[in-house]
């Protein structure tokens, strides 16, 4: 090992001797001036190949040899004039400059090669990691590569879930060490080493090198234990790059987990919807058969006496009520289960028109007026749900307005929303009840389900609006707000 370090110096001395011999041979045949320049070639070559000191050695050796053999008086080391001294200085300067240039060239080349190797390795690792269907496999690959870096004793990637550390890949670390990793993750502070500027630096505050270092990442921690030797500059860069890649892989793992959770949530929602629709089917089918049978019996051809017909009609009315109750309960259950709103721009007048048609038999005998000007802005609502609010409020109004009483429906734009109301001229609501009317199962009647207004409140709130009851001069009024549609005037024609 040590002997090899002196080889360049040997070459320098032997080279100088050889050049001297060659000059001597040439000199015996012809007197050629300036042959000392040949030494320059030797020094240049040595400087470029072996660096500064062998070149300097060669310069000194060349100067001494030339002086001894060729400079008169031949056979002595005496220097007679400044020109010989200048020759030595030139040789030394050339040796120093070329060796310096060559050395920096060599360093650049070496580091370029090292970086190319490193990028190649990182690239291959990144591709493999990204292609691995399981993030865990990619992380193992990465940990293996990191542990192989000289100077790295142990390397692991840990995830932190609900305050608990879990090693995902790499070497095993004790529970204490994992606890330390969790603390580092939660405080967002690295322990032992820091990663910045594309490289890894040991922190001066790290007292004991035998203890692992922790680098918190966005979704986990990198745990690294360094050995006795410090990793080289290139290896430190490699380590930093691997830690960065580990951060990306952990993010990917978290994203994958979150999307799985979202899928599960969606599944549970569709399960809820399926259960509700099955319950709806089971509850409604017997009522449907009951109503079909009862209404069939009412036909004159069925041969019932007028009294029996009345009784049957009454039974059908009860079956209809039962159907409404089941419908309300299911609607409430759907709202509680968090149904998705199907929002589209709608004109308020159109919504009112459809609802009025739906409850026209209940409204029979009442005078209904609609105050909805044509230039009301469109509302961004679920047609069916808001339709239900309007029919519930209209049915409610029809029930409370006296026979032949007035019901009015209207809307106006207010504070960037549509404020709509349904009013009747029936008896006022007791002031203490104004807030309670929207409570589930609260009702003023013996026969009501107490669900209609509760459903209204939930639907309106799902649209981000509010609903309230108040007593106007003529009678009770229900006011609710609806969001305006953000529709440009442009449309397809």
């Amino acid at each position, binding site marked *: 090992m040590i002997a090899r370090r002196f080889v360049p110096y040997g070459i320098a001395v032997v080279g100088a001797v050889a050049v001297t011999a060659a000059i001597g041979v040439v000199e015996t045949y012809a007197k050629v001036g300036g042959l000392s320049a040949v030494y320059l070639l030797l020094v240049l070559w040595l400087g470029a190949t072996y660096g500064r000191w062998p070149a300097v050695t060669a310069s000194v050796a060349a100067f001494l040899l030339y002086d001894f053999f060729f400079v008169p008086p031949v056979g002595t080391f005496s220097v007679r004039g400044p020109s010989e001294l200048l020759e030595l200085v030139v040789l030394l300067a050339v040796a120093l400059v070329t060796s310096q240039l060559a050395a920096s060239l060599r360093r650049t080349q070496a580091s370029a090669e090292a970086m190319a190797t490193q990028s190649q390795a990182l690239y291959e690792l990144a591709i493999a990691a990204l292609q691995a269907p399981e993030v865990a496999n990619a992380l193992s690959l990465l940990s293996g590569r990191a542990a192989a870096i000289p100077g790295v004793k142990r390397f692991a990637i840990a995830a932190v879930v609900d305050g608990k550390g879990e090693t995902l890949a790499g070497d095993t670390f004790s529970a204490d060490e994992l606890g330390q990793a969790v603390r580092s993750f939660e405080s967002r502070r690295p322990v032992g080493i820091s990663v910045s500027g594309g490289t890894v630096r040991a922190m001066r505050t790290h007292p004991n090198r035998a203890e692992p270092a922790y680098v918190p990442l966005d979704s986990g921690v990198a745990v690294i234990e360094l050995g006795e030797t410090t990793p080289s500059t290139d290896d430190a860069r490699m380590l930093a790059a691997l830690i960065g890649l580990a951060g990306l892989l952990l993010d990917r793992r978290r994203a994958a987990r979150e999307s799985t959770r979202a899928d599960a949530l969606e599944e549970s929602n569709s399960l809820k919807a399926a259960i509700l*629709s099955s319950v*709806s*089917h089971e509850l*409604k*089918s017997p*009522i*449907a*058969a*009951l*109503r*079909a*049978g009862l*209404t*069939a019996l*009412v*036909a*004159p*051809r*069925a041969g019932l006496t007028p009294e029996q017909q009345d009784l049957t009609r009454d039974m*059908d009315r009860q*079956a*209809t009520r039962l*159907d409404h109750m089941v*419908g309300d309960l299911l609607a409430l259950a759907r709202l509680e289960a968090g149904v998705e709103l199907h929002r*589209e*721009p*709608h*004109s308020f*007048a*159109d919504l*009112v*028109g*459809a*609802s*009025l*048609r*739906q409850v026209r038999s209940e409204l029979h005998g009442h005078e209904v007026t*609609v105050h*909805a000007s*044509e230039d009301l802005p469109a509302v961004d609502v679920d*047609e*069916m749900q808001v*339709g239900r609010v309007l029919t519930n409020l209209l049915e409610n109004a029809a029930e409370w307005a006296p026979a032949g009483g007035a019901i009015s*429906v209207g809307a106006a734009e207010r504070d960037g929303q549509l404020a709509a109301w349904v009013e009747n001229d029936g008896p006022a609501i007791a002031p203490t009840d104004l807030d309670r009317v929207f409570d589930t199962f609260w009702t003023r009647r013996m026969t009501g389900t107490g669900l209609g207004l509760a459903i209204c409140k939930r639907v309106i709130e799902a649209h981000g609006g509010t609903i309230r009851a108040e007593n106007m001069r003529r009678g009770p009024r229900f006011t609710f707000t609806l969001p305006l549609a953000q*529709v440009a005037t442009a*449309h*397809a*024609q």
Partner: protein
Amino acid sequence: MQRALRAGLQYHDFDVRTAGSGQDALRESAAWRPDVVLLDLGLPGMDGFETLAALRPATRAAIIVVSVMPGEKDKVRALDAGADDYVVKPFGTEELVARIRAVLRRQADVSAGEPVVRSADLEIDLGRRTVTVKGRPVRLTPTEYELLRYLALHAGKPVTHNTLLRQVWGEYAVGDSYNTRYVVAQIRKKLGDDPSNPRYIVTEPGVGYRLAP
């Protein structure tokens, strides 16, 4: 349910035959050629929609779909698959009889090939492509006329947004019901129809529109 309906309809002078499954319904309708088929979407065996798809090309009868699901999705799907109308359980016999009569009336009108469709005091002359309200002509844009014409051709029947979009705009417009809402609002304005109490074009919530017969 089936027995009750049969009894109810028979009391209203209809000849009724019943089928217990989709296959039976297909056989019965081919052999017996009914005027109206009542199809329960919750049939045992064959899926209700499958039966509808098989039945539609095989019969000229009006098909009224019966479902216990109050959702408008089934309604739209059935209408798009060629059903003529839709009733949601539970319903009374009178209501059902009224629906059947309306469907039969519509069928008679269509087969009469009348070129002028009337809805209250609105007249749509399909031959001369003119629209008048109380005898006064109304000027419609081509899009507005096409939409009204399609509703007139199916007067009394609920027409889904998607069917209108497909017929008036083309396949690419399907799904964007803002178009139909906007054009219907324009037509109503020109016809002097109040959207909160329409006489001519009735909104079918969650489904589409219907020209009042």
